[in-house]
């Protein structure tokens, strides 16, 4: 007799049918590990079954308020680098993916960052910080490039053991690397100076040799590097140390854009310390992409010039030598200045030696280019006063405060417009800061050309 038998194996079928559509496939095979080069950098890799773009959400709390950049192209094997982390800190992270239509996320993981190398100087903070990262060289017993968060904590570092100094460091415009100059400006100049590129994950360091590099360099929107280098020319039978602005294209091609001799005549424009420091002694460089012009500071001239990139012509000169702009009668003058910042019709200048006492200061002028007059509008002396015989840089923050890098004194300070000091970080004695740059994020987006 045939019997109708219920196949019990089919029983789960209605349950399966009842479960609806499967969830979006989450990222898989997630591996997070500390960088072998930088203990505050974490590499994360993952895979997806279908091509997707993704990023890693991470942070010190479960809110995970940081995000790595979104991958540009869909793929199945992924990686991201977590930046901006402090040392010896537990972090939370998860991977987020987007296949073009659906979002998915992995489970949450945790990882502890490593401890800083002992060679890095301890930084002491007082007051309330700011919302930017500070990329700054450290000079002294250890030569390194560091990135400090708004509270003055190390989030990235790279020691450089070559026998050269580092004066300027900045995040490259493509957001992938740190650029810095390895040079020597005191004592013998370095023929082996170069601009170094270090990926933020610490791997595969590359460099571009630029002999006789001086203090400063910039990166133009198209990635071209503009740097100050020393140039010698014969003057009255002896080599005279002048300066030039040299541009280094992405393919390594180097082009001289300007020299001291384009605007100045050593027989007329002599400045200070010509014997001990050379002639112009350029020590600071900025670039205005809108005007396509360089600003160059010259210590021995105690002057700052605006230079047309295309022609090499000096558009104006502010200062004590070869000036085309005069100071108003009550304006204090700057002397042997280093970095400065031109913002609109204002210029902030780090005045190393202009104050009557042994103290450095920051001066701000309003530039009336129509009438060729610089009017003094603001100045600041730290309390207690500090003296930075070299370097030094002021930066106006978006909220109107000013970040002042008292380089040789090992101090960076944030002050309000009315001169109230809100925040300071200090290195131990024997260390100095190089020029600084600020970044709102560790993941700057590439700047369109």
């Amino acid at each position, binding site marked *: 007799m045939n019997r109708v038998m219920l196949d019990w194996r089919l029983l789960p079928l209605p349950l399966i049918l009842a*479960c609806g559509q499967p969830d979006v496939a989450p990222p898989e095979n997630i591996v997070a590990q500390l960088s072998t080069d930088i203990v505050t950098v974490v590499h994360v890799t993952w895979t997806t079954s279908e091509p997707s773009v993704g990023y890693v959400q991470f942070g010190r709390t479960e809110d995970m308020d940081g995000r790595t950049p979104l991958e540009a192209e869909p793929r199945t094997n992924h990686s991201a680098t977590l930046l901006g982390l402090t040392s010896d800190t537990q972090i939370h992270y998860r991977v987020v993916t987007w296949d073009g239509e659906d*979002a998915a*996320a992995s489970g949450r993981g945790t990882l502890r960052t490593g401890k800083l190398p002992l060679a890095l100087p301890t930084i002491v903070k007082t007051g309330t910080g700011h919302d930017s990262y500070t990329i700054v060289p450290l000079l002294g017993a250890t030569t390194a490039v560091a990135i400090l968060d708004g509270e003055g904590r190390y989030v990235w570092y790279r020691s450089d053991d070559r026998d050269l100094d580092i004066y300027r460091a900045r995040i490259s415009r493509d957001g992938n690397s740190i650029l810095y100059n390895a040079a020597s400006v005191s004592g013998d100049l370095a023929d082996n100076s170069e601009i170094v590129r270090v990926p933020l994950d610490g791997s595969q360091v590359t460099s571009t040799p630029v002999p006789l590099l001086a203090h400063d360099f910039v990166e133009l929107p198209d990635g071209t590097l503009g740097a100050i280098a020393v140039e010698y020319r014969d003057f009255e039978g002896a080599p005279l140390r002048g300066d030039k602005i040299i541009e280094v294209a992405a393919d390594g091609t180097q082009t001289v854009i300007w020299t001291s001799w384009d605007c100045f005549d050593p027989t007329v424009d002599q400045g200070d310390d010509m014997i001990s420091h050379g002639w112009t002694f350029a020590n600071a460089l900025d670039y205005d992409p809108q005007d396509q012009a360089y600003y160059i500071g010259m210590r021995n001239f105690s002057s700052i010039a605006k230079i047309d990139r295309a022609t090499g012509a000096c558009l104006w000169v502010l200062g004590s030598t070869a000036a085309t702009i005069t100071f108003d009668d009550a304006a204090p003058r700057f002397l042997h200045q280093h970095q400065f910042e031109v913002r609109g019709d204002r210029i902030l200048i780090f005045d190393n030696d202009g104050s009557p006492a042994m103290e450095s200061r920051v001066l701000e002028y309003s530039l009336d280019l129509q009438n060729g007059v610089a009017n003094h509008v603001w100045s600041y002396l730290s309390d207690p006063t500090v003296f930075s015989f070299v370097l030094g840089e002021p930066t106006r923050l978006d909220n109107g405060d000013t970040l002042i890098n008292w380089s040789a004194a090992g101090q960076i300070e944030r002050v309000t417009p009315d001169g109230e000091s809100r925040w300071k970080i200090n290195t131990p004695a024997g260390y100095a800061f190089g020029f600084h740059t600020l970044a709102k994020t560790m993941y700057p987006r590439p700047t369109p050309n």
Partner: protein
Amino acid sequence: MARMARMARMARMARMARHRVLSRCLPCLLALLACIHSVRAAAGGYYWGAKGARALGRAGAATARADDFSAVMLNPAGLARVGTTLLQLGNRVSYNRQVYTRMPTLDWSDLDQGVPRYVEFDPVHNNLPWQPLDPMMGVVSNLGLRHWGFALGVQAPAGVAKQRFPASGGQRYMMLTREAQFLYYTASVAWKLRDIVGVGATFQWIHVPTLRYELVVDATQFPGHVNPVSSELDMRASIESADPFTANAILGIWYRPLAAFELAASGQLVPAQVKAHGSLRIEPVSTEIDDDVVLTRDGKAADDVTLTMPLPLSARVGVRYIHNVHHRERFDLELDLTYETWSVVQALIMDGNGLEGELLGQRLDVGRIAIDKNWRDTIGVRVGGDFSLLPQRLTLRAGISYESAASKPAYANVDFLGARQLGASVGLSVYLRGLELALAYSHRRQPALRVRESESSVYQVVPGSQCRPPYADPLTCNEHYPGKPSAPANAGTYEAAYHHASLGVIYRF
């Protein structure tokens, strides 16, 4: 012979007495019917399931069985077999648990260096799960005509009348609140040829005293912008309307070739749609916007809109086995199949006939808001039966049901959770002379339905969007949603469970 004559006289007197009672009760019944408006019954929305404790107790498998007032909906032909006069009152209490969890998404309006925020959503619940009043009342009588049956009554179709979800919940771009009060005033007539075949018809006056719908729309007008999670210009759009009259009809037939076997069919065959007229109100969700949205048409203040809800046609067939013992029914078992043409519902359309809104100097075209449904026809299977445990004292009943999904997953929406449903029911009737007390409990469950954003076809309503089909213009449409008018709004997990308890009081004169 004398004894037989005496018995016949007593029977006549009994019938006369019943008619006297009926004639006294009719004014009460009419008064009850009239005051149902003031009750503002929590009547059904787009409906499913069964009404009436006896029908509910057997999971609605009663197309052939139909032998009380619920026959006006299930199969009006069954009224011809009532053979007496009965008054039926009933109420169904429901607990409608509905949960929606929006699928995590990337918020392309909240970018950090070009990286969108990954947003997860908390589950949201229907905050009005209890539906305490869901009445049904009617009278059936053969009016002394042996082969006829007549019925008059009112009821609300089975369904969820009210829903309220949080204004900040993940479902906000689908719906905030819905209230749909439907009342069916019915008049039915049935005729039978002996106990072999019967036919019947029900005429319905569908009255919709309240049809309210609220959802959030994004008033953003920036080309290509998208706010998948929330917008500073989120607006609460509220439509409040009513439809006093829509006509409908149901025809039915049963055929009993054998004492133990019965076939039946019925159908709602008149195409109809509810066209409710009312008003539209749009107000900013953000408390930081003080300005009101001013609605105008042709430059004059106006807010009148029409909300259209098509109604399906339906067909039911049933086959019933009756097990008789000594010419009395001991138990029955019925299998019903239903087919409903929900595919007529392509969208719920609010037609503002050129209505425009103005906020902060910006004009919004709110002339038409379509909530896409794209529903499909459904099939239902119901199996149920009665078992007379103590003849004329106690009857037990039970049943199970399955209804296929009206809504495709892509069009799932919290307003009418149209996914497939499984149900089971139990019930009983206790008889005390002419009075029958019927109780039923039914549980329906909608298995979890998950909809991904890639499957979604319900999108945020963005009245100011210039993104037009095929939604590929990079200047007006968002690059992250190619081919879509705006961000998907209905991706997520839908779960529902319904508990119904029904009490019916039937008095047979």
